[in-house]
């Protein structure tokens, strides 16, 4: 079955954003806590964190996990039931 138009667009986007030195999923996990705190504090993304940002852009799996992670962090310190 041919790719749908949306899949072709996603593929082209994925190809366009490909860089030679991407970190893998475990590399992303190693730095994602720091990345989340940087993001939540509204601080600029430093060069070391750009690799995490790129990985999240290219890995749907880690991207979904990251969104879940941010929500979980917001609930971690809530005291009301």
């Amino acid at each position, binding site marked *: 079955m041919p790719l749908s*138009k949306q899949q072709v667009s996603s*593929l*082209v986007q994925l190809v366009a954003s490909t860089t*030679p030195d991407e970190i893998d999923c475990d590399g992303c996990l190693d730095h994602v806590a720091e990345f989340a705190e940087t993001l939540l504090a509204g601080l600029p993304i430093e060069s070391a964190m750009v690799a995490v940002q790129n990985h999240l852009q*290219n890995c749907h*799996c880690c991207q979904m996990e990251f969104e879940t992670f941010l*929500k979980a962090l917001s*609930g971690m310190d809530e005291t009301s039931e």
Partner: protein
Amino acid sequence: MPEPMTSDPWVEKLKDPTQQEEALTALRVRLVRGLKKVFSSGGESFAEDIAQDALIRILEKIDQFEGRSQFPTWAMSIAVRLATSQVRRKHFKDVSLEQFADGEGLKLDVAVDTLPGAAEQIEQSSIYQNLSELIDDLSDRQQTAVRAVLSGMPVEEIANRTASNRNAVYKLVHDARTKLKSGLEAAGYSAEDLTGSIA
């Protein structure tokens, strides 16, 4: 980037037998609270079970904590990965990888119907034509993995079905993307051209 801290109160307590139980309880409460916020449909015990598994994993990995974030944030990243892995496993349990290897690979429809102008349409068609030819040179494993990813299957689940691991599948797809990008660059298309073609 700041230098990693040499010690952290959480790490010290978790490593101290006289304080470990108290620290584990405090951390478990925070993990459960965060997990319940996200996985509320997973049943009352889901967050508790994941937090328990996460605490074991956190203690195993504690020497890898470098203090670049707050300890509870780092701990939660581990708990969320465990939780999402379990949810994904259930969600995709009946999905086979075979359906993404249908013998046609990543066949593209090159014809384009709605574009603002003729020049853009010609460029997009040309990019798709090149892409289609380059895809034929990808290995069967690469084509199957790329199609599965484009169909929304997480790399972790692809790995589970190929006796591989998440990092290896990510690399497999990355190598495919790199090959396609190099081929398109050799044909004269930059990353900006590609992005412009789907704008």
